[in-house]
């Protein structure tokens, strides 16, 4: 009998490898009905090398391999080790008439799904191959689900980037810089930032953090974006803007949005920077305290307030800071301070060398200080340098 390796599109295959043609005949007979019921194509190879050659062409279609142990040129255990290395998703079974402990141990380390003895019992053989087949199918389904989830998360991340990530204003009087990193592998997250020009040399600086990660938190940032400008800022541009009034309104608005859920929480900071007056008026709803660096000295902007969404009505305090050319305002989310066992951000800021990429150096410095390779939460750093 000639070995078979017919090609076919979308066909699922099982590969039988044995140096004895009679064994291959017998196995094909045993599996005939089983394969027919599942629309499975049976491929056969008379040696491990031939098996590898078939795999090279059709590995994407092969789900299960049943291999003999003792074969000339290349032993079944070595063959299965190579399969594991090159095609780790294929499920393998060993079928042998010999009990060579060392070779069987080697096969086990190649991750074989099952071990069957010759002469085989038909019922046992079919049951083991069916189990292996079902396992392979489940793994493929899981891999597809994971891939689909990842694709959707990537899509959500791209959408979030399009919807939320603003083009920061740029003039010769002020320079805004930002870095946003969602949790690795989630592509989207719960950090929110915006800089809205509300008049000549006047900017409303917003930064927030929705509790949690991923799509759920990203949805809430979408709601924030959808309500903040159209429902509030558009109506107050040109008139007096109060960060504390704004936060009071936003709290009430988000409390309403969270009415059908529970446990949602958003920390949020709002500050109005007026370069003509040299002032920065700000209020805080449970967000990490921003910092200002003046003449190399780092100062926190400590005004406290309740995070958004917990209570229906909250009053916020407002603070005023006088700002000057060369001052640097630094805003961030708690992903920065929660890396590793925790980082003291004001102390960190004092150590980072200033310059155009200060925000990026801050991130690297935080990772270095924590001895970590990546952040475990969404992290945003937004800086505003007054020229």
């Amino acid at each position: 009998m000639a070995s078979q390796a017919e090609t076919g599109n979308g066909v699922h295959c099982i590969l039988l490898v044995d140096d004895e043609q009679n064994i291959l005949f017998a196995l094909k007979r045993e599996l005939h009905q089983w394969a027919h019921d599942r629309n499975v194509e049976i491929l056969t190879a008379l040696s491990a090398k031939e098996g590898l050659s078939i795999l090279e062409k059709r590995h994407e279609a092969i789900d299960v391999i049943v291999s003999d142990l003792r074969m000339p040129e290349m032993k079944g255990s070595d063959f299965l080790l190579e399969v594991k290395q090159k095609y780790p998703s294929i499920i393998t079974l060993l079928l042998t008439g010999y009990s060579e402990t060392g070779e069987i141990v080697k096969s086990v380390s190649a991750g074989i799904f099952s071990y069957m003895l010759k002469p085989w019992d038909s019922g046992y053989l079919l049951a083991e191959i069916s189990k292996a087949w079902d396992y392979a199918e489940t793994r493929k389904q899981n891999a597809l689900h994971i891939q689909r989830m990842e694709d959707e998360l990537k899509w959500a991340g791209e959408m979030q980037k399009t919807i939320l990530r603003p083009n920061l204003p740029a003039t010769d009087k002020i320079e805004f810089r930002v870095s946003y990193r969602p949790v690795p592998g989630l592509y989207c997250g719960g950090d929110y930032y915006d800089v809205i020009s509300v008049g000549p040399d006047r900017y409303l600086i917003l930064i927030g953090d929705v509790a949690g990660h991923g799509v759920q938190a990203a949805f809430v940032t979408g709601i924030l974006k959808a309500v903040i400008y159209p429902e509030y800022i558009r109506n107050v541009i040109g008139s007096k803007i109060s960060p504390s009034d704004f936060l009071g309104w936003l709290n009430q608005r988000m409390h309403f949005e969270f009415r059908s859920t529970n446990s949602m929480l958003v920390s949020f900071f709002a500050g109005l920077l007026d370069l003509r007056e040299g002032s920065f008026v700000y209020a805080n709803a449970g967000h990490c305290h921003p910092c200002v660096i003046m003449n190399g000295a780092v100062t926190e902007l400590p005004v406290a307030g309740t995070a958004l969404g917990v209570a229906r009505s909250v009053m916020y305090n407002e603070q005023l800071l006088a700002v000057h050319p060369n001052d640097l305002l630094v805003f961030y989310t708690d992903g920065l301070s929660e890396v590793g066992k925790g980082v003291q951000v004001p102390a960190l800021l004092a150590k980072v060398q200033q310059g155009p990429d200060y925000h990026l150096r801050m991130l690297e410095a935080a990772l270095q200080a924590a001895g970590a390779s990546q952040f475990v939460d969404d992290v945003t750093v937004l800086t505003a340098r007054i020229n």
Partner: protein
Amino acid sequence: MIDERVAMRRTVEIEDIQILWSYAEPEFPAIVVVKGELDLKLAYRLRAALFELINLLSPGRDLYVDLRSVEYISSAGVGILSAALVHASERNIRFFISTLRPKVRSVFDTLGLLTWFTERDPIAAES
């Protein structure tokens, strides 16, 4: 007296959440002991446990969430405790948190929610 009553009480453990309560003794407070890191994953389990317990307890009972063994709490964890506080209040159940480590306390504090909770130690309340 206390020892005899302990036998009538039920303890349930779900991963790092231990729940102690008693149907038989109306005066005995329900105690939820949380251990380890109250991150997003544990926060979801705690939410389910707390809401189920709050729905089980009759109005007027006391519920303590003991955080002495919590080394880290995320904002999502604080959010769940805040939601539980609101739900307990709606059902007229007195909700207490107890024994916050400094790092945990600072998260409540930053979020502006520390003053929303009443801190009370269940052991002190028992004695």
